[in-house]
């Protein structure tokens, strides 16, 4: 079986940062098609029909989200979330650096569909190269009449503003992103009101992930039915899986949603010589572990959820026998504690407290009662805060407490760590 590359077509073969190369493989045809022969409502309807689910983590259908914007005459904004900071995830970065025009075209189409007054790309500060590439792509598109005033001679005008973040994980959360885009601290805001109703500057706003928007040109060019023919019934399309860890060929792999975990690992070159599979996180730091008996699990939004984890960002991290789950949990606890913006007490105190307990356990100074406290965190840290960082900070931990209880016990009773050759993990 050979899979057709869609979003990654040409990457690594031609220089798609040059607009003529992008055009030569069909680029900007979808924009032309939409502006010449489709209304904004038509474009929106096609994306809705395609059931394009958000690639930024939650899998929420983009077409539905666009439909939440109130039609009340206020200016609307489109924000592309290019803050990609979820541990283990590096697919947005590749799209930006190696296929920037696809993102520009996707944003223009989405902006047309939702009748945005202006579009923004919020790009994390670490992506300095990505920023340069995007700024250059935008000027190339402008020179060709794809962007700016009266695009391709139509009534549609659009500017894309690239806004650089400056190092804060929480700015990936959509309302934190908006606070940051307004010039403030990247502190999330209570929802409701959702950004669709009161977003940037209080105006109706759509926030979509880079990869989500990169799918739009293909849906418009080839049609929703084509899109629906790829992937699974409820998770159509391809997904770029970022695979890292104990595999021979870590990297980004674009495959249809619903590919099995086993197939994906094979595509990534299989396990490293000497590595035995211990656990996999399929979607970033907060995703609960999958186990070696999950190799047949289809990686689509619903199947992964049924298996007790989340597909999330599809940042697939592969752990072998040398990785200590207690240390890994401690690492994440430190990470979330550091990245908590501090607005909510359960999150600010809870993440710090979790890290303290795990550090104690990791050093062999823990007690069985500490384990019980860790298990009870769900009650205090989930559903009690402004954003989901608090909830996300303990989901991996809960899964390893369940599946790797022996490792925690070994640490508590002062026996050697159960990882074969425990590898160093830095503390955050």
């Amino acid at each position, binding site marked *: 079986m050979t899979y057709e590359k869609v979003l990654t077509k040409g990457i690594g073969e031609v220089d798609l940062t040059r607009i003529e190369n992008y055009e030569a493989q069909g680029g900007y045809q979808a924009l032309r098609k939409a502006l010449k022969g489709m209304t904004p409502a038509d474009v929106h309807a096609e994306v809705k029909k395609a059931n394009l689910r958000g690639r930024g983590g939650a899998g929420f259908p983009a077409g539905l989200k666009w439909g939440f914007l109130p039609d009340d005459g206020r200016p609307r904004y489109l924000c592309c979330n290019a803050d990609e900071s979820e541990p283990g995830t590096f697919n947005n970065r590749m799209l930006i650096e190696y296929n920037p025009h696809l993102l520009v075209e996707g944003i223009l189409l989405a902006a047309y569909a939702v009748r945005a007054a202006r579009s923004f790309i919020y790009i994390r500060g670490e992506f300095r190269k990505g920023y340069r590439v995007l700024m250059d792509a935008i000027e190339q598109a402008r020179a060709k009449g794809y962007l700016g005033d009266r695009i391709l001679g139509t009534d549609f005008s659009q500017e894309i503003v690239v806004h650089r973040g400056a190092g*804060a994980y929480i700015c990936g959360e959509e309302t934190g992103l908006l606070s940051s885009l307004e010039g403030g601290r990247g502190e999330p805001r209570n929802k409701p009101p959702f950004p669709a109703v009161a977003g940037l500057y209080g105006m109706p706003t759509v926030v979509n992930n880079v990869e989500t928007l990169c799918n739009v040109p293909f849906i418009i060019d080839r049609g929703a039915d084509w899109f629906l023919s790829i992937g699974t019934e409820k998770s159509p399309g391809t997904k770029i899986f970022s695979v890292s860890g104990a595999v021979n060929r870590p990297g980004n792999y674009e495959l249809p949603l619903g590919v099995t975990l086993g197939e994906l690992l094979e595509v990534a070159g299989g396990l490293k010589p000497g590595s035995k599979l211990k656990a996999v996180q399929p979607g970033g730091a907060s995703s609960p572990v999958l186990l070696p008996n999950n190799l047949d699990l289809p990686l689509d939004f619903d199947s992964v959820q049924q298996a007790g984890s989340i597909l999330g960002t599809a940042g697939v991290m592969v752990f072998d026998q040398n990785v200590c789950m207690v240390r890994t949990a401690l690492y994440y606890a430190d990470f979330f504690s550091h990245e908590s913006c501090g607005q909510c007490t359960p999150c600010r105190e809870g993440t710090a407290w979790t890290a303290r307990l795990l550090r104690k356990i990791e050093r062999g100074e823990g007690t069985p009662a500490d384990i019980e406290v860790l298990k009870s965190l769900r009650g205090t840290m989930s559903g009690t805060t402004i954003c989901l960082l608090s909830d996300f900070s303990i989901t991996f931990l809960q899964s390893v407490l369940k599946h790797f209880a022996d490792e925690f016990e070994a640490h508590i009773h002062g026996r050697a760590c159960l990882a074969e050759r425990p590898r160093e993990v830095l503390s955050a």
Partner: protein
Amino acid sequence: MTAQNPARANGAHGQAWWERRAEDVERLISRYPKSRSALMGLLWMAQEERGWVAPEDMEYIAQRLGISRAYVESTCSFYSLYHRKPVGRYVITVCGNIMCGLSGAEALIRHFEQRLGIKLGETTADGLFTLLVTGECVAACDGAPAVQINEEYFHKVTPERADQIVQALRDGADLVELSERIGLIQPGAVWEAGESA
């Protein structure tokens, strides 16, 4: 020659960067529906010009945007990439997140410390290098352990490559060019069944 060096941030003869780059400042502000949104961009500009964000930069930004100095400081202090103290010309930031941690980030930090003769968080006496670690994954886990130098990428940094990079920068290499030449791994052509594996 008595010509002034226009590249000097705020040198004795030079203008302030915001005067010299007045057009860039105005262009940045005009991109946003509300001027306050330009705050982060102006902080970046200050850092580009001076290497860090100084109190007078914040004072200027506050005045230009018509907001309080405290507001500017509050925003600035939220973000880890803004340096509020002088740093070296090259800020070497080792990724310390999970995948880089598992791939030898700790040993890499020790190596940089030894090679540069400084501890984590310090700057070399010649003002060339500052060594930092970040808890954030820098989205290069397929190239672990990863390092950023002034936000330019270096993937798979072995101790030998670390030495090579440091030496090249000491010899005056252009950072962006160096990153492009030896720092990046091109995305492996996306796999198709049958190709290998």
